[in-house]
Structures are given as structure tokens and as C-alpha cells.
């Protein structure tokens, strides 16, 4: 059964169409990586799924189309790209905020909420930071605490917006490996926007590509990440190899100085540097010779 079903999703912000006619199905327990150049609408897709932006069409989470925050929050947890860290809050208090969808108005956190929060901190090996001021933790530690807040809600669907954006290579891998473990352990359904094609090729069960607000490709990593598609949507030369598990290794190369593949260089398109998506409309595009 699909954990996330999106039909005819459209978002217009201040008169500009940011997403149009997006249909998506994410099977329960799978990881969908959402790719696309800057401005393609990835973050807006996250916001539409999490119910923080007005949209046309329907979003069903676990078969439920109720978009009221309290209902949505119990089914879908969000790790934002740049979380707001309240000044002075401890890591434990921050994780406890993730229990909000299960709390009414109450004077203090329940023992059950506190136990669950500690349990998630332990699972992510963060318990030694529990009483530390969250603002004093390193970027990698802080990102794991934010992930802990999402996990403690017990929502079956986890949506992450660029979860590795501010991290170094080792921490990027660490977070994504952790997500993969949690996916297996808890049967989580994961929707994560990703910048890094190499990471996407390693971690997504399926990948979707957004370009100029439209869904232009959806499939397995081997189907979506090919030299031709990478050239078309990102305007760079790449080679890919698919291993036995279906994972894709993506290697990006600098363009040759002799002008090979010139049709896709960023400056050659009619709209300057945005030619990556311009070429996607098929204007003078030829796949670079491998």
C-alpha cells in the first residue's frame, strides 16, 4: 500500500506557479529521494506534504487526506532544512517538542513522553547531550537531535528537506546511513530532498526529479540517474555505473576544454545560467559523447 499518495498537486505562491500537476506514489517502508536543480520546487513539495503551504490537488498520508496540522503531524514528521533553534533550549526539551501531536494542553510532559524522548536520544547515541544547550552542539550533532525530534512523534512517514545540506562528507554519510537503519528497523517511509546525486544514487529506493515545478522523472536510481538525464537536468557531464544492488555510482567530470558537449554548458542557453532546465525543454540538446 502506498504510504504517500499525491494527485494533481499544484502550488502557486504570489502568482508564480511553483509546482504543477505533480502525481506521486511512495510505497510504505521505502525511501524516495527527490532531486532537481535549485528552484525546481523540492522544498515546496516538502511544504505541501507537511501541510504548511496552500495547494491544489490532494495529498494522502497513510490513506488520510486530512490536512489539519494535528492530524497530519501524527502521520508525518518533518525535518526542516534550516530548523529554528529556540535560544537556551536543551536537546532533551527540543526532542520533547516532537511529542506535541500527542499532547493536549498540560502542565508538564508526561513520563511516557519523557521516556520515549530519552529512548530516541539513546538510539541515536545522543543521550550525553540531553541536558546540553542545543545551540552549543556541533552541526552534525544538532542535525541528529532535529532528526530525533521527528522520530519521537512515532509518525510512520518521515519527510526531510536537504537533511545533509550543512554537513561535511563524513557526517552526510552518517546521517543517511542512520536513516537507512531506521527505515529498516521501524519500517519508516522516507521522502528526502537531496542535492547530491552521488548520495541519492546510493540511498534512494526510488528517485523523483523535479524541474521547473514539474515531475519530470520517477523510477529506480538506475532508471533516473544516467549520463543523459544528468546532462539534461543539471547541465553537467557525468558517468554512472550500476552495481548488483541497483545502487548507482555517479561521477561528475569537468567539461573538456575543446568544446565537447558545448550545447549544454550553462552559458550557451538562451536564458544564461539556468540552461540546465532550459535544455530540459529540448532546445538544441544532445547528450554529450561519452
Amino acid at each position, binding site marked *: 500500500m502506498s504510504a504517500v499518495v499525491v494527485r494533481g498537486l499544484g502550488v502557486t505562491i504570489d502568482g508564480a506557479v511553483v509546482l504543477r500537476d505533480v502525481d506521486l506514489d511512495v510505497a510504505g517502508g521505502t525511501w524516495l529521494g527527490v532531486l532537481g536543480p535549485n528552484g525546481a520546487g523540492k522544498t515546496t513539495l516538502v511544504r505541501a506534504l507537511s*501541510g504548511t503551504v496552500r495547494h491544489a490537488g490532494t495529498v494522502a498520508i497513510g490513506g488520510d487526506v486530512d490536512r*489539519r496540522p494535528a492530524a497530519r503531524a501524527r502521520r508525518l514528521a518533518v525535518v526542516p532544512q534550516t530548523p529554528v533553534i529556540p535560544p537556551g533550549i536543551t536537546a532533551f526539551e527540543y526532542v520533547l517538542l516532537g511529542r506535541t501531536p500527542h499532547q493536549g494542553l498540560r502542565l508538564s510532559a508526561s513520563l511516557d513522553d519523557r521516556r520515549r524522548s530519552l529512548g530516541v536520544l539513546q538510539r541515536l547515541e545522543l543521550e550525553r547531550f540531553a541536558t546540553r544547550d542545543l545551540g552549543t552542539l556541533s552541526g552534525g550533532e544538532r542535525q541528529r537531535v532535529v532528526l530525533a525530534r521527528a522520530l519521537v512523534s512515532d509518525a510512520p512517514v518521515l519527510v526531510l528537506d536537504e537533511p545533509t545540506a550543512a554537513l561535511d562528507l563524513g557526517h552526510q554519510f552518517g546521517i543517511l546511513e542512520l536513516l537507512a537503519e531506521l527505515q529498516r528497523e521501524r519500517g519508516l517511509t522516507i521522502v528526502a530532498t537531496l542535492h547530491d546525486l552521488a548520495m541519492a544514487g546510493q540511498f534512494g529506493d526510488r528517485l523523483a526529479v523535479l524541474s521547473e515545478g514539474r515531475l519530470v522523472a520517477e523510477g529506480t536510481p538506475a532508471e533516473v540517474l544516467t549520463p543523459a538525464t544528468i546532462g539534461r537536468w543539471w547541465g553537467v557531464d557525468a558517468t554512472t555505473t550500476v552495481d548488483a544492488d541497483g545502487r548507482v555510482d555517479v561521477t561528475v567530470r569537468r567539461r573538456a576544454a575543446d568544446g565537447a558537449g558545448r550545447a549544454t554548458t550553462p552559458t550557451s542557453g538562451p536564458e544564461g545560467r539556468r540552461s540546465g532546465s532550459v535544455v530540459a525543454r529540448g532546445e538544441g540538446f544532445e547528450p554529450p559523447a561519452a
Partner: protein
Amino acid sequence: MSAPVAAARPPVTVDDRDRVAPPRPRDLTLPLVALGLGAAVAAALVGLLVGPIRLPVGAVVGALVDRLPGAEVAHGLDAASTTILFEIRWPRVILGLAVGALLSGSGAAYQGVFRNPLADPYLLGVAAGAGLGATLAIVTGTASLAGGFALPAAAFVGAVLAVLATAGLSLRRGRPSGPAALILAGVAVAALLAAVQTYLLQRHADSLRAVYGWLLGRLSTVGWAEVRLVLPVLIVTAVVLVLAAGRIDVLAVGDEEATTLGVRPGPTRAAILAVASLATATAVAVSGLIGFVGLIVPHGVRLIAGTGNRRVVPLSMLFGAAFLTLADVAARTVQAPAELPIGVITAFVGAPAFLLILRSQQGRA
């Protein structure tokens, strides 16, 4: 690559969970409540004991206990002293406790909701609206109507109308917008109303003294009338703000994240601000514009007890009650038999006390 289909999710490390006691967030704890209540009770006792006429401690405590149902204590207070205690000092102390709790609790709520440490309960035009309402009542000579209650009524109506105007002006396409729009609308409304008030005062220079006296704030009571007006508002405010304090903590992560945590930021903010504004308008109507309490008391509590509104809001109400009651004692004794405006005391004592707390905390950090 294969992943299990969503089914029963195993609970997180159950064994560990039960072995280790989870830490406590900075919620309200019993010792803290006891501390706050103790401060309020102690301040109330000081308020009852201190005044132009000395009342002995034992007799006052005895008379208080004597009033409890079922208790009979020989206290030895004569009739005149009993009247002073129960008809003059007692209602005034209760009013001080109530106004202090209302202003401090509202201040803590405003600062939390606006995520702005400089927010005070007068931010959305309550002060300017009440000031204009009171000025209108005084210059038109209607202040003394209805047994003197026309003045607080005018101040209350002015305060409520000003907040409604602020809320209305901040709407964007008929929907609530963010906190910044609300603050800016409040500044504009306050400036406009202050201008009208200044103009009225210019035209009625003879009323200057009366208006000025009101603006500086005072806790004078006529028996129990004011207390009966304020107590129901105090109870509603205390219940709502203390229960909603956890929601204020959720709003601290911003509107978008609050939504993903299941809280609707607009309606939540509107409800909390409505109650806090009503509380402030009521306090101002019976006591004038007492400055600084809504700002320094919550900050003092935060510096000593830490952030977290489940702790800050109720403790602000308790310590605010104590602070204003003590300030009133100072106001009526420093220049006895004349009374100083209580707003002068709150600022004069509050500012250095606040700086002291701030500096000692910085030294510790």
C-alpha cells in the same frame, strides 16, 4: 535496497527506556510553586502589617486565622484596627497581588508569543487605548459617574478597542499574518492614540494633573469593589495562560515548524494574546499604567529559573504578585502620609534589581 513494508514498528529500545530515569524538562515543579507562593504570601503579610498605623504581627495573623471558617482565635485587635485591616489594607493587598500577577503573566505570554524579549503587555496598544479612554472620561467630566467606575470602564473600553484595531490592521487579506505585522500595527495604533490624547490634554490643561496622576498608576481601592472586578479575570487568565504555556514553547520554533508539530500558529497566538490583552486591560483599568512590571518580572524569573514557558508563565504570575504588592508598600510609606505613584517605584526599584540579576547571571555563565 529492499525495505520492509510499513507494519508494526518495534518500540525504541524498551530495555534501555525502563532502566534509566529520563531527565526532566524545565517544567513547573512543586518546590518552585512553593517558592512563588511563599513570596506572594510573605509580600501580602508585609502589605497588611506596614502602614501609617502599626498593627502587631501576632494580632494580624490571629485576626486572619479567626476569619477562616471554623477557626476562632482571640487576636486582640480593636474595632478600628480590624476595619483598617479588612476594609482598607486587605482589599488593597489583594488588588496588588492580582494586578501584579496579571501584568507579569501577560508580559511573559507576550514575550513568548512574539519571541521578543522586549515585548511588554502594552505592546499592542493597551496602554495608549486605556490612556485615551481615561483622558476622555476625565476631560469630559464623566470620570466620576457611576460611583467613580466610569473612569476604569472608559480605560478598559479604550484598551480593548485599541487592541482590536491593532489586530484588525494586521490582518492580511482577512487572515492573521505573522507577529511582525501585529507589532507594527500596535506601534501605529499607539502613536495615533497618543497623538489624540496629547491634543485633548492641550485643549484641557486643567485636567493635566488628574490625567497625569492616572497615567502613573496607583492601587487605591474603595472597599472590595475593584477586587470583585479583577478576580474573575485573574482566574480565567491564570488557567488559560498556565495551560497554554506549553503551546508558547512550540511557537518558539516558528510558525512553519509549529504547524508540522500539529499546532495552528495563527489561532493559538490569537487566543493567547486575546486573554493576555484582556488581562492587561483589566489591570490597567483599575490601577492605571504601571510600567516595567510585565517586562522585568518575567525576565527575572527566566534568569533565575531558566527558559521554558511552563515554568516562566506561572512563576511570573506569583512573583509579579509579590513584587507589585511590595512596590505598593513602598509607594504608600516612603513619603507617608503622601503616596508616591507606584509606577515610579516599580521602575526605580525594578531597573537596578533587574540589572543586578542580569550581571550576576552573566558572571556565572
